[in-house]
């Protein structure tokens, strides 16, 4: 198993990283045995990161919570589908994204909703006009319509190709490209409006 991204948290303490890795492997094993206490611990360790992923794929917090819930249930029940190749965290993220895509497929009718350009979005960060903080950017992404938001996340953040996105969302490559450009346009507009 590859070392987890814990490295970024504790960059100079390699031994503790190794220990963490071992601990995590054991913890994961315990989770697979349906050890509820281990699962609670595992959840508390990864939930924040996973929830952040869920949040940017969702329009509301409630939606994000649903995805988080279903995702973790899948993680704990279908643990055997993790083959050990690639990071555990990466596998978990993929499950969250797939769960989010299920929401996408279920709501495909609402994709063609028009974006309200005049929509008033409260931007919390007032520190630097030019710079938008995480919270603001998250808010922007959440206000994208479902289709644009999903494609933007998959392409710009996750790094999938249009071909892969088309496959995942069962749309054409062309549709993926056009949705991405529309998402970018919209976001661009919103960001530049925050110059002041």
């Amino acid at each position, binding site marked *: 198993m590859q070392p987890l991204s814990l490295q*970024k948290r504790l960059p100079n303490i390699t031994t503790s990283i190794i220990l963490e890795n071992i601990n995590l492997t054991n913890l994961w094993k315990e989770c697979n045995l*349906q050890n509820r206490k281990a699962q609670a611990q595992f*959840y508390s360790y990864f939930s924040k990161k996973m929830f952040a992923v869920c949040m940017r794929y969702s329009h509301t917090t409630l939606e994000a919570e649903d995805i988080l819930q279903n995702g973790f249930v899948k993680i704990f*029940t279908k643990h055997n589908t993790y083959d050990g190749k690639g990071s555990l965290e990466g596998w978990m993220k993929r499950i969250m994204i797939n769960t989010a895509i299920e929401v996408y497929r279920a709501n495909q009718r609402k994709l063609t909703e028009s974006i309200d350009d005049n929509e008033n979005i409260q931007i919390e960060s007032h520190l630097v006009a030019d710079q*938008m903080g*995480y919270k603001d950017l998250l808010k922007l992404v959440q206000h994208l319509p479902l289709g644009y938001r999903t494609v933007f996340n998959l392409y*710009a953040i996750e790094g999938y190709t249009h071909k892969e996105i088309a496959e995942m969302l069962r749309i054409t490559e062309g549709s993926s490209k056009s949705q991405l450009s529309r998402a*970018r346009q919209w976001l661009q507009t919103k960001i530049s409006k925050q110059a002041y």
Partner: protein
Amino acid sequence: MEDKDLDKLFQEAFKEAEEIPRPEIWVQIENKLKDDSKVVPIRKRNNWWSYAAAAAIFVSISGYLTSKVFEERSTIKLTANVPTPEKATSNYNYNTTKSQSVDEKLKQDNNTKYEHLVNYREKNSDNNLEAGTSKVELVYIEELTENQLLANIKLEEPTSHLPIVRQVTEIDDIKPIFEFEEESESMYAATPNEGKEKKNIITTLLNNITDNIDSKVNKEVRFHTDDEGSFSISILNSIAKNPTKKRK
């Protein structure tokens, strides 16, 4: 801003982002896991149970059928103990091997026997099989005592056991009287060498199945097997029945 820069802006912001979910969510996850864990072992058990159930059904069906086979066999044994009536009727079949006088006498006997059989059966049509059969045997003994010795002497032959088996089967059959006799008649006419037929488990099972399919049809289709293991089906119909035997 260029597209790539825009993407990068969002990338950097979201890379190591963390959001804190409400504690209630874990509770909900836990509950779902509990429900799932209850379901999964049962599903695994279901696989086992479904196979066990299928096996149980199969065993019960085959057991029921074989018990029917045993029923027949047991009645065969019962009636085999009383050889005289069977021998009397079998003589009817082997006319060519016996002397004339004996045949005549036996013919008379057979006629009387059949009359008695008819009478008896008509009286006791509602009785169950085994009780009826045993009573018939007794009647035979009473009525045919004068020919008993003759019958005994004449039929102390190697082939005697075969006719007994055949005859007993027919008498013990769970059929009304009329068809019963008709059936024996037709069997004579259609397949004279039927005494040599061999029956094994498969043929008796098949025979039982066909009997049970339509109780009105009296052994129209019979399954036999021979020494080499090949199966044969003999189809008997009313055409082969003896027209002189009219019961109605």
